[in-house]
């Protein structure tokens, strides 16, 4: 995750022209967000798988890749869209996001997101209501700690609902199935995870967009 963002962005010198090119920059950002999304999806999927399997057979890694191959690319695409959407909306609304714009904060955000997933996978809750409530509180806390923008919250809620709905449809049509659905074929904590994920990806996307802004301003400055 870090190496990906660390290598591509600060490359300068001969690449400066390429990077300051707007569309190229967009593509680079999109690709980075996509890869981050894929990576996180794989890892978090692994966490969820762990919950149900007590002990991994030796070739569990390959089975993860084979089970639902389309899940990680979907997550990657979604995260790329979200990560590009957030800075775009920020600039549209004219209220640039000023709160905690730095990589350490973004890292903290990602860590908390993974932690939420970890908790949902590993911690044994008494019942699902408790689990959902806890995760909801954690997600809101995540938003409050790292985002605090109304647009971020709104977008997060909307996307979370949409994603839940689409998952619901998928499950309903039998494309996909949960091992232990607890609420209308799906897991009730899904919206919270989606929300937290949207906030996290938005955070990353904004931070990446900051680079673009900086590069652009630098370029204009040079000119």
């Amino acid at each position, binding site marked *: *995750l*870090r190496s990906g963002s660390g290598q591509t*962005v*600060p490359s*300068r*010198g001969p690449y*400066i022209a390429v990077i300051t090119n707007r569309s190229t920059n967009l593509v680079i950002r999109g690709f980075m967000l996509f890869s981050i999304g894929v*990576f996180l999806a794989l*890892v*978090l999927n*692994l*966490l969820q*798988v*762990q919950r149900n399997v*007590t*002990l*991994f*057979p*030796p*070739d*569990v*890694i390959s*089975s*993860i890749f084979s089970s639902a191959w389309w899940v990680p690319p979907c997550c990657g695409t979604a995260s790329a869209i979200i990560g590009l959407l957030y800075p775009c909306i920020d600039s549209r609304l004219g209220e640039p996001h*000023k*709160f*905690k*714009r*730095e*990589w*350490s*904060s*973004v*890292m*903290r955000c*990602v*860590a*908390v997101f*993974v*932690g939420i997933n*970890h*908790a949902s996978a*590993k*911690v*044994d*809750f*008494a019942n699902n209501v*408790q689990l959902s*409530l*806890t995760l909801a*509180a954690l997600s809101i*806390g995540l938003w409050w700690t790292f985002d605090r923008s109304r647009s971020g919250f709104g977008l997060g809620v909307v996307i979370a609902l949409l994603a839940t709905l689409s998952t619901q449809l998928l499950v309903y049509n039998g494309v996909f199935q949960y091992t232990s659905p607890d609420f209308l074929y799906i897991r009730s904590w899904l919206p919270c995870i989606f929300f937290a994920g949207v906030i996290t990806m938005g955070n990353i996307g904004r931070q990446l967009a*900051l*680079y673009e802004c*900086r*590069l652009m301003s*630098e370029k204009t*400055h*040079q000119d």
Partner: protein
Amino acid sequence: MTVRERLREKISAAFYRHGLLCASYPVPIILFTSASILTCCYPLLRLPLPGTGPVEFTTSIRDYTVPSHEPQGDLGEQPDWYRGPPVAYIQQVLVKAAVSPWDSTLVPVDVFRSPLGRIFTLLEEIRNHVHNDGSGVRSLEALCLHVTDLLPGLRRMQAILPEHGCLLVSPGNYWKNQRELFDSDPDLLKTVHQHEPKGLHTSATLRDLLFGIPGIHTGVSLYSKKRVVTYTITMALGSYDASFLSSLRARLHQLHPSANCSLHDDHMVHVHFKEEIGIAELIPLVTTYIILFAYIYFSTRKIDMVKSKWGLALAAVVTVLSSLLMSVGLCTLFGLTPTLNGGEIFPYLVVVIGLENVLVLTKSVVSTPVDLEVKLRIAQGLSNESWSIMKNMATELCIILIGYFTLVPAIQEFCLFAVVGLVSDFFLQMFFFTTVLSIDIRRMELADLNRRLPAEAGMLPPKPGPLRPREVPPPPRPSPHTITLQTPAFRNLRLPKRLRVVYFLARTRLAQRVIMAGTVIWIGILVYTDPAGLRTYLAAQVSEQSPLGEGGAGALPPHLGVAPVFPVQGGDPSSTLSVLPAPAEPTLLPENQSRGHSGSALPRAELPRQAQPPPGPQISWGAEDEEGWRRLSFRHWPSLFSYYNITLAKRYISILPVIPVTLYLSPQEAMDTRHPQDTRHPPPPRLHISDPPADLTLYKVAALGLAAGVLLVLLLLCLYRVLCPRNYGQNGVAHGRRRRGDLPCDEYGYSPPVSEISPLLLRGHSMDIECLASDGMLLASCCLAGQIRVWDAQTGECLTVIPTPGLRRNSSSGCWEQRDGWDTAAAVDPENGNGGTEPAGGGVFEEDEGYPLRQRTAPRLALFGDQPDLTPLIDTNFASQPPSHLLLTPPRDAFDFGGLVEGAYQNHEPPSPSVTSPYPTPSPPSGPPPQRRRSLGDILPPGPQERRFVGQGTPDWESAVWAMELQGNLIAAGRSSGKLEVRLWDAVEGSLRCSNEDGISGITALAFLNNRIVAARLNGSLDFFTVDINKPLGILQYRGPTGRSNMPPSPCYSSEDVISCQLTRSVQCAHQKPITVLRAAAGRVVTGSQDHTVRVYRLEDSCCLFTLQGHSGGITAIYIDQTMVLASGGQDGAICLWDVLTGNRVSHVYGHRGDVTSLVCTTSCVISSGLDDLICIWDRSTGIKIYCIQQEVGCGASLGVISESLLVTGGQGCVSFWDLNFGDLLQTVYLGQSSDGQGVRQLLVLDNAAIVCDFGSELSLVHVPSVLEKLD
């Protein structure tokens, strides 16, 4: 005052006191903190070390009962995992078989074929064993652990491992437990080996699983020397039945008596397995750790502006880590045993606790004023951030408290840890980190002091002028230290610290040596601990050479057949017999009765050895056989069970004592069971000694070592990349501008790293900039057009334009004429003379001469300084000249500057148009002057007329501003116009606040100190003005000769704060000749004049303290600062240092060929620049030239010192930064594309470490953000 504010104040005060405390007693506090950390971590010693190694617990078989689920308090020594039934009871039957006596007709395959073949009968025996006592018939089928399918991924093992039945494994599984398959197998070894995984493997292999002992010890090999085959039959029992097991044991013993067996069979070992972490589980964990490290990396890199970045980063990490340890320790102390997986929650704990507070503290402390004492800085920094720290802490505690009430045990536990961690983190921040920070800041101060001390020590004894005789050849020009400024590529850079460390490592080859030493030690350990390796060999050697023979045998490897040393596990050996169920045992063999008595084991061990025929292989039983499973990989049992999806994680198995079986086969039997192909194997070479498994181990070790080395190198490479992401090779433009990495963000307001130097262009002036003044916050510049612009020194935006653009238009014609003010001045004279206002012709010439002196560029100075006696000639010339200017200039040019001076111009400033422009050139702009002069002439003579002009608020923009000073938001400008004035503007609003027009002669230099303005005039007089604020209008302004005023009181009528500027004293004849330099600092005013003298005045009472004589030319440069250092440079190229208190000359050196154009002193050195384009750095105390820097032509005069060790010089369109201590070029910043041809003429260093320089009509603001040293 609300409660909140009061609370805030109290917190702030408490933090302030605490900061004082910490900074005052750093060492005791650090000791105290370390002690408390250690105390809190002490309970951690009792925690088991993390790891996945199994834990054992041994009980006696005799009174074994399945432990209950409830914990039993009385059994203190029982581990807490010893509850409930085990997953399985493991019963192994250890078979040792040998063909005896060994015959020379036998082939190598016979060593293991027939012994292995016997396994099928044994299996049959075991499977069919039925125990029948009073309670019923029991067989293995009823007792064993039934397993179902193998995991779906294990298809290839399906043929081998049992499914849907008893978990009973033996080497027979290779042949599906069928004798026929075994007999028809042409190559047994191939069958065994074909299931082995390729390459290196660490966990249990199939062969280990089936044989039940490590592969090396099986003896199933063509090269086995001992010719004893060992294998086990492993049964997993679901329930424990002592009578059945003992009857089985007895039965096997009866069938295959182990004559010399002395194994203990009275203890069962329970093995508990920790949760195991597979690769799949590791991936999320590794991910979280990567994120954690990224977080720490991005956080700590924000630490800036301190002495040791790495030290503080380390301290921050130590703070967080030890707070974690403390929290775990404290929780353990109060009886809360952690049930969570520490490794998993650790990253989240770190993220929750966070490094933010530490960073905020650092930032707050380093942003306090640097001139304060360290204690106060720490205290201030702490108290500044106290409120936010407390607020954050309270918020986090609240959140965690909410988490605590979720009533989910895991979350509650996490929250508990987090709370204790937060509190201890706060404690550590306050005590540990603050103290470390104070030490760091103090070190920085000390470094500053160290640099300062020697210089001041040298200055203290004021040496009474160790004057060099005048005859000394003045400039030792080609100094050996001269550093020539070449093309940027050749400029050498100072090595950064990191690179030096790397070079040091490379030079000493530290890394390689450490790796080599480590490898050697590692190999040594491996060789020593290898079972078949050195230790055994050594032990054997020792025992052979021991005179006591068998005496030391107790410690020897067991195959020597001596009494083993049993682990002391409680339970006496004599109890063995009673365990054996007597009724079920048909004890026919007498040996059985006495076996197990360790005392009698030794003679018995000797017996069969003599009984057996000597050539036959020996079967001996030793201690290593008793618990043979110990030699297996600790993953053996978990992997066996995991094939059936049974996890042993956090559970235990009970291993029953092995049942020994000894088989002796006759050679005939071995030959009978031969497969036809067996004889095809060539007999092994007799001298084949080398052991293939041992070889393999060696290869493995070598491969591992190689891999580890490669990994280490890669790791170091990555580390280096991370630490030194910049390439230092390039220089110049790329070096200056491209370092715009990910800047730390605005939340904390950190300044960018040192290489982030980007010039800010301030545009707006239409003409060349003449004067620059700044007070740190504001920046005022004045161009030749007489336009004053006020800029924000931070952002570079233009705040005010004086006059307003509309007004400026009117005087645009005048502007152009100002460009060559020389002509103006010259032209004014005749007009003035005509008008009759000029007192004397001499005065005119003074003005004429003085004008160029005001300018800071050297050539003009030189020109006029060298030619003072030409004035009468010019005077007469001008008097007779007609006012037509176009006609006037050429002859004057020819007259004045012909010959030697002209040559000097050509040499010094050929390329710079901006510099040559002031000289009279027949350029188009010189057309308009007459008009302007006429208007000037109109204004000048009558006093009232001029008064009215001022009263209207439109001062004469026609006259040039010759000197300008800025203080607060007041700009004082001295003008050149025939009539002379000191004007004060409000710098922000741009309104004229006050003016004073008492003077007669043009103001050549101004100094603005506190509320006093000192103006030096062309005629050598010195005027002292006082600026009063909030006073009624000064009457002085109306003190004109006519005394009448028909206009409203001009300067201050629109303002509430009344500012007046009064002439308090005028020293009429301060100098005999024009004053060229005026400097004021530390309550002194120092003037330098063309008359070769320097005068020191006291600012308060305008009293002349000293007249310093020593130069043999006009004074061209003076430096004085708060520490009363006075240096002067003259046209003779000499530099004098003076003691301002006594008036003595401290040192006197000849530095330059030509004029000294500017002078700056630091605490240790004096930096001078001269007309010869050299910048010389002198040792201040000894007056020895340290080194010289050759500047580009025409840019020699602009230099400034940013800090004690950072010198900045102007060049052609660029500024260069030099390390003063070493004379290395640090960086060159190019100011802009348009300015390439322009030289930097003036350079001003602002307080906030910014540089302003002007080139042509543009200003450039260069921020040098991370200058650590204090500014004087």
